[in-house]
């Protein structure tokens, strides 16, 4: 496999960013990691994962869809779409890489969402294998191997060198563009590191969590479960879980009056919010119980029902770490599960 020495990472980043925009996870002052546009001198974060997921690159929190100019009774529609620039996201973890597959199922299904597709076409996802998974990780539950991430190209570190391999054409193109910096390397040590990571993954507290008892066929059984009241009673109805989630994709479309035109934009929305399904004549989800149920039913039952059994969760553990009252999908699965 091709490799580059870890102390030459700067050179690698400089080379990539010379031809296209590069985003890497960097450490923030408060210790959390976030993706930043690479500028010379930036250091790659060693954190397990970024606080916000990588979905922002393809599905940003807000984006302008279309502009309108209103004049008397007339309306002019202005298409504001522009071809996205080419960019590389470096250091995406296995869980987030899988989340793109899930988002694709929604946004690339007919009719294709051109806004999403535009960025997806121009973005290259370079993943990074995990070596230090933490207690909130449960990607294995969804069949993801943290030591062998998906993505257009994948990187693995053995502590000395960074190994790179392509998974598809886009990844190969990426590797070709930096091939002058790469050399052939022996993967013996890397295999040992990966084996060790897999050992750790097996020992994690959530390693035994399975989806065996969830899926599209359990729809009414789980919908009518009497556990929802207890599970949702302390839910604050905030949107933290949905906004840090790499697979949550619900959005709202809103108009903003700028004083000299109308901007129609879309923004992330959360099924946990009270006005998510509110209509002029009423609301089918009146209490937090129904909203809470919707979120987890969507991930564990509805999504697999519509997508050949694929679940709407990748086990990244962000909601486990971030929920203000620590209620999360793992607790829901454990409470709900009917064997």
């Amino acid at each position, binding site marked *: 496999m091709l490799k580059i020495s870890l102390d030459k990472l700067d050179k690698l980043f400089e080379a990539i960013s010379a031809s296209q925009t590069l985003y890497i996870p960097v450490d923030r002052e408060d210790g959390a990691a976030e993706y930043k546009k690479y500028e010379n001198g930036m250091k790659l974060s060693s954190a397990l994962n970024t606080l916000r997921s990588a979905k922002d690159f393809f599905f940003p*929190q807000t984006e302008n869809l279309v502009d309108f100019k209103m004049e008397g009774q007339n309306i002019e529609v202005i298409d504001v779409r522009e071809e996205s620039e080419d960019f590389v996201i470096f250091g995406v973890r296995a869980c987030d890489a899988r989340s793109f597959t899930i988002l694709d199922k929604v946004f690339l299904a007919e009719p294709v969402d051109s806004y999403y597709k535009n960025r997806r076409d121009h973005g290259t996802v370079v993943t990074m294998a995990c070596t230090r998974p*933490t207690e909130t990780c449960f990607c294995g539950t969804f069949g993801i191997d943290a030591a062998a991430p998906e993505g257009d190209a994948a990187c693995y570190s053995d502590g000395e060198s960074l190994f790179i391999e392509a998974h598809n054409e886009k990844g190969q193109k990426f590797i070709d563009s930096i091939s002058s910096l790469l050399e052939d390397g022996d993967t013996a040590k890397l295999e040992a590191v990966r084996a060790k990571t897999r050992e*750790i993954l097996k020992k994690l507290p959530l390693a035994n969590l399975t989806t065996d008892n969830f899926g599209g066929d359990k729809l009414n059984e789980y919908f009518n479960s009497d556990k929802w009241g207890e599970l949702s009673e302390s839910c604050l109805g905030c949107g*933290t879980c949905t906004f840090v989630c790499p697979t949550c994709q619900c959005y709202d479309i*809103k108009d903003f009056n700028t004083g000299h035109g109308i901007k129609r934009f879309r923004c*992330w929305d959360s099924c946990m*919010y009270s006005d998510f399904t509110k209509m002029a004549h009423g609301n089918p989800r009146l209490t937090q119980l129904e909203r809470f149920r919707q979120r987890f039913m969507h991930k564990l039952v509805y999504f697999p029902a519509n997508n050949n059994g694929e679940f709407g969760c990748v086990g990244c553990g962000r909601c*486990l770490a971030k929920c*203000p009252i620590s209620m999360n999908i793992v607790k829901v699965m454990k409470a709900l599960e009917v064997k």
Partner: protein
Amino acid sequence: MQEAMINKAKQLLADGTVDRVIGWKRGEFAYDITPAVFETAEELEKEFVFDDFTAANVSKYLVKESKKEGKILAFLKPCDTYSFNQLTKEHRVVRENVYIVGIPGGPKLDAEKIKAKGITGILGVKNENYTLKIDTVYGEETMPFYEAILDKCATCKSKKHVVYDELIGDEGEVLDSNRFDMVEKLENMTAQERYDFWRGELSKCIRCNACRNVCPACTCEKCVFDNPNSGVENKAPADSFEENMFHIIRAFHVAGRCTDCGECSRVCPQHIPLHLLNRKFIKDINSLYGEYQAGEDTTSRAPLNDYKQDDCETTVVHERGVE
């Protein structure tokens, strides 16, 4: 302490004083504790927890819970009693339906602080003589207890319970805290520095509304930011202006009512020090209109519902400090 609380709860349930108990429920890990309502002794025995991580302020849940039938037992820490008292003052809770047992306060721990030290794979946390022994997937780690406490506990204002029906432990006292230090530090910066500081912080906001929804003072039935007819409804910060507006209005709406419980900053997934905005209001109110602690009593007039004819003019802002 946990044992004493469970016994107290069981006793009060058994003798019919209360019908339900609000407290905290054990989670998957050492630190992920969920506020919960318990109805039976068995549930309490099995899941009730009170330890270094039970920081959540349960007083806001009482807005709903106290309106249900029967009486509820609430275990309140000193800071929580201020919030509860303020809610009583605003007629948001039915005081008669709540039986309050005062329990000792923090300092409570912040799992994020432990993780920020690079400690991952946390399986268990033990406090041994104010040194945390942290059992992880990668072996045992240690760190000083006080380096892992919540920001809100590091600047604790009071160990005194301002309202209770019964107390476990001793009555505490109002502390001489240094909670305004950071506000002062910012005040002494230049306007440009302050602007840069807040832009850096507020631009992290993802508008999850956790700060608003957890706040015991934010109890409007319909928030102005959720009301499509308000003209300012927004779900996402589409512009830096909207980030600023949300946080200014959020803090302003609780000015004079905020008890400084610190929940807003505790729950912020982006670690924005939101409590500084609230504290700025508290500090201004204290210095301009006389010392006032929201939630201390249930009878005094809130500073923004009150006035004196010889109050200072708004020019006081222009005349002081650094430009």
